[in-house]
């Protein structure tokens, strides 16, 4: 647990979260959400929770992103806010 590294990753996570909810293109928002999940996975690996990090890398950054993209391609890509 190195607190400088931790603070850097936490700030990147907050920036990604802000980007997810402000971007109007839903496909871009989903890809940024994948980045967010991966940063979260890095944070957990750094905290010593290796199993949780592995699960997040496979489930959050893999399956969730694919499911979101599949649903968005079948509905609307643009969002009004």
């Amino acid at each position, binding site marked *: 647990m190195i607190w400088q590294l931790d603070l850097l990753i936490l700030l990147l996570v907050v920036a990604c979260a802000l980007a997810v909810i402000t971007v109007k293109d839903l*496909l871009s928002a989903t890809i940024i959400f994948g980045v967010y999940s991966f940063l979260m996975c890095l944070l957990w690996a750094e905290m010593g929770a*290796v*199993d949780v*990090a*592995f*699960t997040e890398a*496979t*489930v959050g950054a*893999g*399956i969730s992103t*694919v*499911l979101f*993209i*599949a*649903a*968005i*391609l*079948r*509905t*609307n*890509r*643009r969002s009004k806010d």
Partner: protein
Amino acid sequence: MKRRLERAGGQQLGDSSIIKTSVRLLVPFVQLFGLYVIVHGHYSPGGGFQGGVALGASFILLALAYDLKTSIRHFSEGANALLANTGALIYTGVAALCAVMGGLFLDYSALDKLIPLGPIEWRSFGIFLVEVGVGLAVMSIMVSLFWDISSGGEMDEGL
């Protein structure tokens, strides 16, 4: 396919032989890694969920690079439903077997009366049996979630 991409605001992309060839080479290794993660969950990070998701991701990769039909040809809908039920039944079956053999529900050391390995070894092996069940269930449910959502329940064309 074309109509939906236009509606989603993207442009038509053709089939890419680079992606197809690399996915065909990659899929066996992804499946091998998934099996390794399930089996090696006692000694390294991983276990039933992670390995099951990796196994499911290999079929999802196949459906993304080719189309839904190819994926269904390699892993039929009947097999999918059968494996999902089998996975859940393995877990509950092992748990109920413990109760039948005279122990508590989910107390794997009671299975020692069936095959004498020693109660502590049976607790280790019982965790492995349960993880295999979880892996099977998670793999087939993840694949069927992707099939349903990407084709809107039609199972015809996919993404």
